[in-house]
């Protein structure tokens, strides 16, 4: 017990009106699905609601509704009119931000301070940002010239987008997918992750509140089979997926030989590179943010720390001291830094890889922390003495587990950072500007952060190299994936 014991400071749940059951959102209405499943709070295993499971036939209804909305209303609506709906959605998200944040933390397990300060504001920001693009699409495509020669014609949308999103940032990933699709004039059928459907369903309510024309946004809940039905539906023109590389491969195969356009946002094993001239205290913050933000359930997490040997001991000592102040527990407590692991399945995967790390000879360390009895929990963990040959240096753990490797020269740092099948993100820590630029140039990663980590902004494109996927989301580049040109 420390001298300054922070009293519990829970955010109230009362703002969220949970319904006992939720239907599918098709053609502007909530309808029954073929089956149903329970969704829980990973922090307590409490059942929150019963959610409809969409069958292939349900998905077909949703795609048909999206097609009708595309042809009758949305595809031909002037951009400036579409923008009004997007601005309205953005404002409602901002207005209902507390409700969305509490629901997100309940269903996902992430700390309320993150859903409140990161997920929800960024989701609103994405809608605001793409709302601004809706009537400026000719400027989104470099060198755009209308085929028929008359000025003012916009690049054409693709049609119906089938979108499948992960459980780590349920509302934010929804915003990343839906905002650019709608701005460009597409209609969507979106499948949220099986374990985190609730904020997507609240978003469906927001679409009703914004009086979005029926069928423009359809939400079909369910597991892998529902997702496959969305991806494989013959009348889907565009597939957008964020999730594991394993599923990404299946999707790439499924759409091969069709006319569907695809963007894939997959896994990562990012290197966070700390040079000996780094601002050490801030680098430690960046390392902590890089791997323990959102329990490490982040595709661009800085899961490999590459630290220059000459400062390694000193840095690790600081890192451990800092980790000892992380507060693990109730996601709804405003002082919680690290929340619950999203599912039993994910927890067992993290545990298994951590066991492998120990078995391979790496040294495992966690601060003393009491974990709640119920729910899915994993203490923040670091492995030192890791080498490139270890599985924990190569495989994506997708949890609060950091692998620490050392290097001696800048060349070695680059070599190790790039020696991975992934290439989503990387971090560089140095007080020397010229070094940052030189190293960033050599890293094969879609996003390179300098003296910061896990910073997201709707204006900035995001995406990977190699097995981290293809296509870019965010910024002007994010629109191109939804335009036929």
């Amino acid at each position: 017990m420390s001298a300054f014991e922070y009293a519990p400071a829970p955010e109230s749940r009362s703002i969220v009106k949970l319904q006992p059951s939720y239907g599918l959102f098709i053609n502007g209405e909530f309808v029954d699905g073929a089956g149903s499943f329970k969704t829980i709070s990973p922090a307590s295993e409490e059942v929150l609601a019963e959610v409809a499971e969409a069958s292939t036939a349900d998905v077909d209804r949703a795609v048909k509704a999206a097609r009708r909305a595309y042809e009758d209303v949305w595809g031909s609506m002037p951009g400036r009119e579409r923008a009004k709906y997007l601005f309205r959605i953005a404002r409602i998200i901002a207005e209902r931000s507390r409700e969305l944040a509490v629901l997100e933390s309940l269903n996902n397990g992430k700390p309320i301070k993150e859903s409140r300060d990161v997920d929800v504001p960024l989701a609103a920001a994405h809608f605001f940002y793409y709302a601004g693009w809706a009537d400026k699409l000719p400027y989104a495509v470099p060198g755009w010239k209308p085929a028929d020669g008359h000025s003012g014609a916009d690049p054409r949308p693709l049609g119906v987008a089938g979108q499948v999103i992960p459980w780590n940032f349920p509302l934010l990933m929804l915003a990343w997918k839906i905002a650019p699709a709608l701005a460009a004039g597409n209609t969507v059928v979106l499948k949220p992750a099986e374990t985190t459907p609730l904020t997507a369903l609240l978003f469906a309510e927001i679409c009703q509140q914004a009086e979005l024309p029926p069928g423009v946004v359809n939400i079909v809940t369910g597991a892998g089979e529902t997702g496959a039905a969305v991806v494989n539906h013959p009348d889907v023109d565009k597939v957008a997926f964020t999730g594991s590389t394993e599923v990404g491969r299946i999707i790439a195969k499924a759409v091969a030989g069709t006319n569907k356009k695809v963007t894939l946002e997959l896994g990562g094993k990012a290197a966070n590179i700390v040079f000996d001239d780094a601002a050490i205290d801030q680098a430690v913050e960046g390392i902590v943010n890089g791997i323990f933000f959102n329990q490490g359930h982040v595709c661009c997490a800085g899961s490999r720390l590459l630290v220059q040997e000459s400062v390694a001991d000193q840095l690790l000592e600081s890192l451990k001291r800092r980790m000892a102040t992380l507060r693990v527990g109730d996601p709804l407590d405003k002082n919680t830094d690290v929340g619950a692991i999203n599912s039993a399945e994910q927890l067992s995967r993290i545990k298994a890889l951590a066991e492998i790390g120990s078995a391979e000879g790496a040294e495992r360390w966690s601060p003393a922390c009491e974990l709640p009895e119920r729910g899915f929990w994993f203490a923040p963990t670091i492995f030192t003495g890791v080498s490139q040959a270890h599985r924990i240096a190569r495989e994506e753990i997708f949890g609060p587990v950091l692998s620490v490797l050392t290097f001696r020269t800048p060349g070695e740092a680059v070599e190790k950072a790039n020696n991975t099948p992934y290439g989503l993100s990387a971090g560089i820590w140095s007080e020397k500007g010229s070094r940052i630029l030189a190293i960033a140039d050599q890293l094969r990663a879609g996003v390179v952060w300098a003296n910061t980590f896990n910073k997201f902004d709707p204006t900035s494109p995001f995406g990977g190299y190699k097995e981290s996927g293809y296509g870019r989301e965010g910024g002007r580049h994010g629109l191109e994936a939804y335009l036929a040109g």
Partner: protein
Amino acid sequence: MTATISPLSEVTRSDAALRTFLHGLPGVDRVGADARAAGLGTRSIKTTAKAWAIDLAIRMVDLTTLEGADTPGKVRALCAKARQPDPGDPTCPPVAAICVYPSMVPTAAEALRGSGIHLASVATAFPSGQAPLKVKLDDTRAAVAAGADEIDMVISRGAFLAGRYLEVFEEIVAIKEACGKAHLKVILETGELVTYDNVRRASWLAMLAGGDFIKTSTGKVAPAATLPVTLIMLEAVRDFLDTTGRQVGVKPAGGIRTTKDAIKYLVMVNEIAGERWLDPDWFRFGASTLLNDLLMQRTKLATGHYSGPDYFTLD
């Protein structure tokens, strides 16, 4: 973060050695430091934790009056308030110290006798420090002789910014000697040092020279104390303890007016330097108006309702 030059006394043998050491300290990334301070500022301190923090903050206040218009009457009134901040509530603790100009020390010493409350005096040509060393030393000795047991000195920011680190160092050493048994707080005047790298270097310089406390500001220059600057100084005292085994205190001063702010500082002390510093011997608030807000929040917490400012004494 510790620069491992051993023994540390070697680093002050010449201007060049001192410069090499101070410039060899890890840099501070301003954006990152600001973000960390802001992040800690979002901690939510409620109920029992808040009550505990308010009482600790009261016990950490250096109740200050540093005006040209100060009179013995004003100082006596302040001393009475220091002893008994809330006359209506005997459970309210006294403050840590009174902080006045040297000419007011005899009056304050008389008024505080037997209370256990420390008596701090600013000295060394406060607030600018622009006077010959001899004047500064006399200023210090006079304050100590009159009864001050804590001296708040200012460093020569001009010399520091000109890179004459050894001169600044030697001046602090001389003042420390003139203090005798009195504790020495070294005011960095961070608002004039401007960069966080300078704040870190000045902190180490003051600690190497024997300062018992490092203090942000005189309160006469804006910006005075800020959360990020205090963060840098808390990191410095933490690292200095690791390196040398000697603990140095921290005193943010100027601009801290609300309970909410004070609690943010205490959270930062707790999570950056550690709970060893959660003690009036190692952390102080230099403030004049903060105390009344602490008292008002204390009463609110105990009774459930706010009384107006008229229910708390002006001084």
